[in-house]
């Protein structure tokens, strides 16, 4: 996983005893500014329920006036609580206060990355590894049981849903994609059929995809050598790629970096090797823990 679990702030908008209530428009403005800034906000209410506290540092916002509640440092099992008075403050000033509190606590800034990445629906996934072999950016890996997993979310190319297009089971989602079923909409029978058709991407171009691309390149090259027409060769390549782009909705820059069939085979071989090594390592660790120590090891 490229993103280790990161400590974050928990912002609480407190309007209970000791804090003046916000008008609902002010509450909405404050919440919107914080959310747009990448901060979650908890709004507790009497008798209501919110998620339990954890170790995240709490920033309690409220209109406390002259008697704000006391702050408390982190103690065993309890988070640190910072208190910030937001009386007479516009929403952007509240956001600035939270930013300053985050800086002070040495916590990372949110929102530095556009969250575009595949999510696997394991109810559908058959672990066929097509996504792993097809992805150009090393987004996928396998866990120690050999199960496909998304290992490097931030390597995914924003707006590229190519791997979901080649998944024969429609098991890969991009929640921020525009259309279903890739966006997470329920998968219908006809989706599976149409996606299965797309799996055999080679068929789209009337044979093996790479062979087809090669043939077209060869034709273009021949044409280039006989006619010395560079623009025509480029047009040929563009036409071939446009065909893929239209059918699979793959961005240009991804198409321009399509690997060869050999590259894909090599990547699949390396992933398999890696998984086998991992399995072997975990078996060695298991064997080590189950092994009965020798008399020498006991010092006998």
């Amino acid at each position, binding site marked *: *996983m490229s*993103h*280790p*679990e*990161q*400590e*974050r702030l*928990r912002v609480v908008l407190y309007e209970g005893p000791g804090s003046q209530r916000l008008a*609902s428009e002010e*509450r*909405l403005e404050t*919440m*919107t500014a*914080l*959310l*747009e*800034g*990448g*901060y*979650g*906000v*908890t*709004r*507790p*209410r*009497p*008798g*209501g*329920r*919110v*998620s*339990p506290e*954890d*170790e*995240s540092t709490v920033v309690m916002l409220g209109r406390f006036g002259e008697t704000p509640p006391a702050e408390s440092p982190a103690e065993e099992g309890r988070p640190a609580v910072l208190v910030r008075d937001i009386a007479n403050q516009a929403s952007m000033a509240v956001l600035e206060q939270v930013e300053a509190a985050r800086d002070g606590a040495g916590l990372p800034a*949110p*929102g530095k*990355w*556009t*969250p*575009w*990445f595949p*999510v*696997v*629906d*394991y109810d559908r996934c058959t672990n066929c590894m097509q996504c792993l072999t097809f992805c150009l950016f090393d987004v996928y890996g396998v866990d120690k049981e050999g199960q496909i997993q*998304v290992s490097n*979310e*931030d390597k995914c190319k924003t707006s590229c849903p190519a791997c979901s297009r080649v998944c024969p089971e429609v098991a890969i*989602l991009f*929640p*921020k*994609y*525009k259309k*279903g079923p890739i*966006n*997470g*909409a*329920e998968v219908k029978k006809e989706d599976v059929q149409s996606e299965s058709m797309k799996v055999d991407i080679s068929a789209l171009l009337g044979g093996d995809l790479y062979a087809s691309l090669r043939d077209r390149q060869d034709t273009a090259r021949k044409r280039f050598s006989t006619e010395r027409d560079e623009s025509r060769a480029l047009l040929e390549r563009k036409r071939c790629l446009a065909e893929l782009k239209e059918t699979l909705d793959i961005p240009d820059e991804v198409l321009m970096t399509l690997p060869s069939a050999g590259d894909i085979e090599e990547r699949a071989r390396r992933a398999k090797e890696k998984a086998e090594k991992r399995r072997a390592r975990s078996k060695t660790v298991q064997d080590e823990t189950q092994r009965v120590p020798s008399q020498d090891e006991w010092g006998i």
Partner: protein
Amino acid sequence: MSRAEGQKTRSIVYCHCAYAKVIDPEVKQKVLEGLCASEVAFEAVPDLCEMSARKDPAIARLSATSDLEIAACFPRAVRWLFHAAQHPLPEKVTIHNMREETADEIVARLTGASREQEQELSS
């Protein structure tokens, strides 16, 4: 049912989907507006996708909460986002889809119980 008893039966989470424009901004805004104008307790998160990828501790915290009601996008996406963050959602979760349902429908479901309770209290 008393007000406290009613509100204790569920926890509400609103996802602002801050880093993409896949949810109609008007729907998002109306749902948040409805929640802010109500008396329900809730948690608003900036973007469940980002939180899932970053393994935000809030994902663990939310998945540990029983009787969740989430206003976000497609239920299949929301479920597998939590799973991807290694904190699968419990079975008993209601997910409201802001990509397909109207803001009014969602707000009515999220705040309806509390309105009924308020009416009970005032009567």
